[in-house]
């Protein structure tokens, strides 16, 4: 399948944290946001999303709270904690390093 990319191992956490930077969001919303921002290229499996959300909560990077959507539906909203923000910065710089390194390694040889 050329039109869909699997989320790389280890990048899901970064994507979730990054998504929550814009404000609290519920699980479905997070999945939608990631898909929309990737131009429908990244498809997050619910089977990975929810365990990941709980794992982040366990690590103390995000917090959860019941709230109401624009359509007046009850949902559990996740938001970044202070520790989560610090983690996001760390993960971002790590990711940039990976991208740069990968690019250098994959650069065509002259």
């Amino acid at each position: 399948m050329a039109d869909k990319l699997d989320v790389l191992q280890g990048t899901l956490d970064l994507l979730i944290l990054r998504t929550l930077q814009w404000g609290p969001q519920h699980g479905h919303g997070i999945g939608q946001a990631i898909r929309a921002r990737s131009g429908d290229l990244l498809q997050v499996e619910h089977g990975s999303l929810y365990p990941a959300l709980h794992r982040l909560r366990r690590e103390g990077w995000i917090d959860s709270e019941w709230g109401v959507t624009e359509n007046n539906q009850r949902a559990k909203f996740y938001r970044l904690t202070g520790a989560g923000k610090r983690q996001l910065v760390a993960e971002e710089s790590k990711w940039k390093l990976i991208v740069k390194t990968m690019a250098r390694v994959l650069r065509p040889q002259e």
Partner: protein
Amino acid sequence: MGVRMWKRIQWWWRRSQENQELDEEIQSHLEIDARERAQAGASPREAEAAAHRAFGNRTRIAEQIREVWSVRWMEELGRDLRYGARSLRRTPGFAFVSVLTLALGIGANTAIFSVVKNVLLEPLAYTEPGRIVAVQTLWTKTNHAGNVSGGDYADLVAKPSPFAAATRYSGGEMPVETAGQAEFVAAYGTDAGFADVFQLKPVAGRLVASDEFRTKATVAVVGEGFAVRHFGAAKKAVGQVLHWEGNALTIVGVLPAEFHFPLKAELWFPEPWEDTSRTAGNYRAVALLKPGVTAEEARAFLAAVGVRLQTAFPATHTGKSFTATPLKDLFLERSRMTLWLLMGAVGLVMLVACVNVANLLLARATARSREIALRAALGAGRSRLVGQLLVESVLLGLAGGAIGLALAFAGVTALLRLAPPNLPRLEQIRVDRVALLFNLAVSLGAAVLFGLWPALRAARVDLHDAVKQGGTRGALGGGRGEWIRGALVSAEVAIALVLTVGAGLLFRSFLALNAVDPGYQTECRLVLTASIPAKTEAQHLQAGATFERIFAALRELPGVSAAAGVMGLPSGPYGSDGSYAVEGMHVFRSDQFLTLPHAGFRLTSPGYFAAMGVPLIAGRDFDERDLYDAEPVVIVSATLARQVFRGQSPLGRRIKCGLERDVWMRVVGVVGDMRNDNPAQPPAPELYMSYRQHPYHANDLHIVVRAQSDVSEAARKTIAQIDPKIPVKVSTLEQFYSDAIALPRFRELLLIVFAGVAAALATVGVYGVMSYAAAQRQAEMGLRIALGATGGDVVAILVGSGAKLAAIGLGCGLAIALTAGRLIDSMLYGIRPQDPFAIGGAVLLLSAAALLAALIPALRASRVDPALALREE
């Protein structure tokens, strides 16, 4: 890590709510998704179905999320615990017996050991008892250790030495008087090092200052007990004045109540000794070792000093060396026998308890091998199976431990109520923590060990075979497991028999001791301990005359039928003894002393034998004519008359002995035997002398008053009227007597309780194993009944196999008891360790218990419905 664990535990704690929220979260996701799809144009039903499809396997995702939070070992433990508790509830008999066994083992052992340790081992209530040593003279020829002389002491502790501090002391019971009252107190003179050796801190006031030792200030430090008795409180004692033998001392400080050194001491005063004698061993000495120095090093140092002194003073120091012994060891020395006996009993009871638990767990594992095999076949991992069985063992161990703990506390309380009230430091007895932990650890260890072994074996079992064979012959059901269980039962019976024989012997000895005739009557006899200070010969003679007036005045009191004095009351503190010579038979010279006969020396006033109810066999009692300047006279006991005069009359013969006067004394009377030293000892030969003819030993007397009623107050007043300065202590002859046998009596009681516990545990153990064996063979018995065997046949078969095990155990136990009996010979009174009644009684008791234990399950098995039993297979 910390956050993670904490959050996990929070989640686990709120798990039911969290699980519900999880469901709600997924539900809300589905609803939001469905609504979006509906808004995009799908029909509500389509939208809902699509949302479900998109979400995937809801249960699996929820499971994955729970996995994120799971505290796996905790959950498994919880499951195992629940399962274990359920499986124990299913077999309440097994659970009950195991828990009871452990509880009895832990509780009874801890309680008894706690009391024993406190009462008999006399733990030292000093800051660092391990570092304190007694410094003693060692006579190398006889290996006898004794007091040190003033001159030697100075050399022994002269720096450099291995001692951080050292002190010498001397003293004993002295009559002490305060404003309100007089009493006999253990009082000791010490030098300045005393407070440093014991690192003392006063509870009120101060210690004696070092310059007060130099000047021999008239100050004293007293024990808290003394302070409370005399002044109401420790603080009130400071500044008060006390008197003894003409000295007036001001109390400057009070030491804590639990400090008693030397034994029972309550009064300490400074004594600036300047005695440089090398030969008079007047002092006892103790020292505090420097940190890190061992007793061996101190001994080596003292031995070196000994060698130096031998060279310097060959005339007096040949064969004389010095030694250091930790105080703890000195105390242990005294009660080593009792200690070993009780430790042995503790060990045996613990062994029985462990064997019991082992047996039960082995039997249980056998019975459950099919269940285990089934679980293994269904995919339970080996570690899970072992863990499961282990959890059950620990559960049993913990339940037993908890009940045992309660038993230990209750037991200590009960034992204290039974203990004789004059035992030292009774008020300080607590459950001994070390003993409690030790017993807990041993029982838990046994439960885990014996739970683990069958668990490991069971987990390794060939599943196919075990499932196919069914419950009766699983992992351990075959010959080997049965053999082990049988051996354990026999061992248990053997141990219980040894303990029961021991208890039986002690009980018989106890009865014999209680029935013994001491030779005197103890009922209705008041004992007044009185002391008249005297230093010169004239004062001592005067003291005798004063006592005579006191006796006369006491005899006038209403209800009093006799009053007389003695130095050397039976079981009292003032006995003396030595060699004597009969004129015409022996030569009384120092080089002949070893060949001379030996006797107890006692001084009495006229009328003493009548007051004690001792018969005069021949001759006369002392009378008012037997004074210092009259012809010295002596009365001999029947045993002495028999031993030395062999049927001839001793009357008119003359005897000389090693008491202070070197004179021949004419025998004027023969009296009945008395057990003067100890009710447990056969009467010794005795020489009774007139107290007024030996005045130097006769100013501290016990006055025996025979009266129909309690005349102690009237007696006190009578003596105070004659001289208010005479301190008087009131007691009864019964009290002296029962004090003398209180300790052996208590020791026997403890051992009897021990043996009772062991016998009960062994019976429980036999019952447990027998009932399992019967249950195991239920199918076999059912078959036998179906094939025509009667209930009686079944009972005979089952009881027979139990009886065989018991008989083997009894045989082994009997052999051990007969061999080991010699070890307690010295503690027995009036019976031999091979006493047939004690041994026969123990065998009968245990046989009956074992048969009963085998009979009950056998009877149950004989009533089984054969069809039912066979179908269960």
